[in-house]
């Protein structure tokens, strides 16, 4: 049998044996602690991985599963290799977090070698910066064949040229841009875009008087004074523009 196939078979056997009692050893290869505290979050009461028999142990010699966090720094390469060698075969290797998966934001720095897979073969990757405790639960369950993988490689190819239309149909793109910009300045990209979209719905009316009436109506009903403030600011831009165009 091919060594690779043999290894896979052994791992499958291991998963079958350790099903309800999985010993995990964490190796921090130069992480920022973000991953570490989220793993902490996963083993404490609210997420409690121990209910699945997953237990963090204190020595790689006890481990069935190794969890590598952090971009592999130069100084941690040797300790990481020692930990890897100390864990009995077969073992499951999990790369945890953006840094563990690929080196993350540090991927091309002189101080790191990249992700965990720059040094040893990895079985499961858990992306995230850091992965939430729920993502940790999911990833560990996947490493143990308890849950199925959800995302897969995707590829899109433009065969025919297909145009992309501006975001707000029937609204002057200059006005839309200005409103969006002001909304972002006032409320940040996320709420700003939502508020701008809501406001630009009114503008489609075309009739400035109707727009003015409807916006004022909305502002009056708005329970959040901050939202009302933002809407009025956007409205000012529109009214100035309309006034300018008219006069």
């Amino acid at each position, binding site marked *: 049998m091919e060594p690779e196939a043999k290894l896979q078979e052994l791992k499958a056997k291991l998963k079958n044996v350790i099903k309800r009692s999985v010993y995990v050893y964490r190796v*921090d290869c130069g992480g920022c602690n973000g991953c570490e505290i989220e793993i902490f979050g996963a083993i404490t009461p609210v997420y409690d991985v121990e209910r699945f028999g997953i237990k963090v142990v204190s020595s790689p010699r006890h481990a069935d599963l190794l969890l590598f966090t952090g971009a592999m*720094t130069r100084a941690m390469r040797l300790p990481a290799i020692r930990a890897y060698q100390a864990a009995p075969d077969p073992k499951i290797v999990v790369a945890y977090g953006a840094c563990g998966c690929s080196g993350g934001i540090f991927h091309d720095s002189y*101080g790191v070698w990249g992700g965990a897979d720059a040094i040893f073969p990895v079985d499961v990757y858990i992306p995230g910066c850091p992965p939430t405790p729920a993502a940790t639960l999911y990833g560990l369950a996947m490493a143990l064949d308890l849950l199925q993988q959800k995302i897969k490689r995707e590829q899109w190819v433009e065969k025919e040229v297909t145009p992309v239309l501006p975001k707000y149909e029937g609204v002057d793109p200059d006005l839309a841009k200005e409103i969006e910009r002001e909304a972002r300045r006032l409320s940040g990209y996320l709420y700003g875009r939502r508020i701008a979209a809501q406001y630009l719905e009114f503008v489609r009316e075309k009739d400035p008087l109707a727009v003015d009436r409807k916006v004022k109506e909305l502002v009056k009903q708005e329970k959040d004074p901050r939202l009302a403030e933002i809407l009025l600011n956007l409205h000012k831009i529109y009214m100035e523009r309309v006034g300018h165009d008219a006069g």
Partner: protein
Amino acid sequence: MENEIKGQQDRKKYVRALYSKFGASILEEKWQTQDQVTLTVKLNTLPEIVEEAYYGQGGWLSNVIGNDERSINGHFAVYYVLSIEAEKDPNKNLWLTIKALVPADKPEFPSVTPRVPAAVWYEREVRDMFGLEPVGLPDARRLVLPDDWPDNLYPLRKDAMDYRFRPDPVAEEENYQFIGVEGEGIVEVPLGPLHITSDEPGHFRLYVDGEYIVDADYRLFYVHRGMEKLAENRMDYDQVNFLAERICGICGYAHSVAYASAVETANGIEVPPRAQYIRTILLELERLHSHLLNLGLAAHLVGFDAGFMHFFRVREKAMQMAEILTGSRKSYGMNLIGGVRRDILKEQRDQVLRLIAELRSELDDLLDMLVNTPNFISRTQGVGRLDPKVARDFSPVGPNIRGSGYTRDTRADHPYGAYDRVSWNVISKNGCDVLSRLLVRAEELYESFKIIERCLDAMPPGPVLVEGFTYKPGTYALGYVEAPRGEDVHWVMTGNKQKVYRWRSRASTYNNWPSLRYMFRGNTVSDAPLIVASIDPCYSCTERVTVVDVRKKKAKTIQYQELEQYCRERKYSPLKN
């Protein structure tokens, strides 16, 4: 306005005093802001002037920056940043930077460490990164660079190498020289670098006589990732915010704010008040989760594991608040130069206020339970003493120094964000021990609740972000934040090409490590993990312990778990038999 002018007058008197003492040695005086001044001095007078500012004017060493300015003025430069806070008045406190140029053809400068011990780590780092030799520095070992890094390659020199260059390892084993402590019956106990509880790797070596620790040494920087070089080469000003956040996964937002405010100050960018409030709220939120984490670990280490679980259970509320306000439990990603990326609307505000109320009442119960646990006081009182005199020499920061009777808190000493616009108190205790540091954190949680609630109530209207500014090349300034573990001080010099010329970030724990050695002394081995945890380092424990018994000339390796268990139960010493 009148107050401000008076404040500047008050601050100038420190500079005048230095002039009257060192007159001709001071070559240049440059004010970056009302409370930040940089004095360029003659290289040979550097140690005396830093000493005078430190001990003579009530200064604390907050940062030391090495810089390769050969393309600007033909020299290297070192900057010693001191926080002068003798009068404890935010209108009179001053950031005083002493700068000296180091000739490019003779890269050495007189070491300040013999006069001001707090400079020791900084000078070792400047030597590692720039190849500038601190003449007279007793400690000749590397600090930041790994053991397998080639000699004579100094990463932060502009002409040394590409930021992506990865030299082949020159050593296949760690060869760091630990201090040797000799004497009859002295045993060496190495810990690390891997460990089970949490956080970063680090290697400790304890020298013990029987059960008592006589000295300690440590090798850290296992996580040196080359961030400063990365920022100078690959990133634009906004991207570094996200990199700064990843200096530390626990108090990363503090770093992001410190970096952003350094850039904003250097370029004269006015951050809108609403953004200041939002930054303040998030900084306090970060303090909540971080202090709860530390209190939980302390409970664990004194053997009160049920308490540990409860602390982590309620800590989830702080994480939930972060998710509501920023979209992420950790790594808030909220800063851009000039403001923040998300507003706080009524919906989020109401949810956070509700969670704060819940957390406060949970905490009342838990803390009451913790201090009434029979062995909690006995395990922490009088343990891991940080002597105020040692503290004065090494400039530790945060709850660490506030537990030793000082009231140093950057939020009060050099107010930023909205800290001078809402009322709150600096917490300080006089016990100098593990207990005091824990109580400082516990009480600070309540101050954080107050600050968050008051900021949410008083948030001014207006934008959360300014745009349309331009970056001015060649300017520099400090940015500072009181992170959960103490002040973070960043220094940024702007460059052209939309990149920082030099970004120096100094994390709070950096200032806390050097005095830890003194906190170990005289304590028992079983208290070591507790003492380490009490400075709340980005590091807690270690994987295994090798015990070297000098008297019996015998080495023994034991599982770290045994030591931790010993710390919790104090029975069956692993050092016996």
